[in-house]
């Protein structure tokens, strides 16, 4: 199935610079409809109000972390199918395993490049 490039993408990060970087990369990849949240709680509120085609989230945020957001999303029947990619500096094996167990679709370790982001989005949504 073709990837819906107009589906909104939610980028969650507590650093505006990182949101700006991901926004620009997504724009280059053809995703124009990008929304943002500064932590898991704000993201969860947005996810409950609107359907998103993809969530790209950092891990280490306050008050709600990306890991907690992931668990909330996977525990909610309506949100459960939302594709979720973790983009984080947390690179310990225990982090990757915990995220995988919690149902993350893919995991990108910071710093990353446009090619990696594209490859991971393609592996989750399909080629575009």
């Amino acid at each position, binding site marked *: 199935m073709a990837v819906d490039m107009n589906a909104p993408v939610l980028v969650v990060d507590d650093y505006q*610079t990182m949101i*700006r*970087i991901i926004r*620009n990369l997504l724009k*280059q990849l053809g995703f124009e409809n990008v929304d943002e949240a500064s932590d898991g709680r704000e993201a969860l509120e947005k996810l409950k109000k609107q359907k998103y085609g993809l969530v790209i989230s950092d*891990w*280490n945020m306050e008050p709600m*972390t990306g*890991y*907690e957001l992931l668990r909330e999303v996977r525990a909610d029947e309506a949100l459960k199918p939302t594709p979720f990619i973790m983009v984080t*500096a*947390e*690179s*310990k*094996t*225990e*982090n*990757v*395993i*915990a995220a*995988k*167990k919690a149902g993350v679709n*893919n*995991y*990108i*370790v*910071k710093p*990353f490049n446009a090619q*990696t982001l594209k490859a991971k989005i393609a*592996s989750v949504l399909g080629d575009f």
Partner: protein
Amino acid sequence: MAAPEVVLRVKDALSRLKDADLKDPRLGEVLTLASQMSDAMMAFFGSMDNSLYGELRYLSAYIQRTRAEISALRPNDIKNDGIPTAGAELDAIVANTAEATHRIMEAAESVMSADTSDAHAYQAFVCDKMLEIFEACSFQDITGQRVKKVVDTLRHIENRIDRFAKVMGVEDAEVQLSPEEQRKKDLLLNGPALNGPENKQDDIDAMFGGEDAGAAMSQDDLDALFD
């Protein structure tokens, strides 16, 4: 019973004994026994005084040494100057890097969205923006110097505390995690690893069973990593 009262009672007892019949053999035995007990008690209290005095002298010397070591730590200097200065330097680093990143990204974004219809004008515009990026990168020199100052302060504090701990023979006490530390532990908030990521992207891809990584890891494989 107060000491003067004891003295009076002893005096009174002695005068009564003087008035009594000292030829009574039982009284003589009692007096001998009392004399022996008195000698024994004097020896006991004498030794106790010496040991107490020794203990107090040791404690006094220990307190003086501790005061001298704490003074050598220069805690007021650390509290009033070292740590606040280091904090201010770190704040400045965050501000400098944020400002530089903003300038660089703004330049890059303007290039990406620039009008390319006039090749000559576009080339000039791109050159200007590249120069802006070079200029913004000068933050690295300033932040490098600030970081060095913070590192020097931390090293200075580390050396003083290390010396103090050695001199005083201090060992680490077991401490309970604060709620904040417990939360970090529970939510695996480890932060960025030193010297690059602990698992590179290829390692992580392998855990997700990427095409280049061969077979996907089973749940059992994942569970085994916890054992």
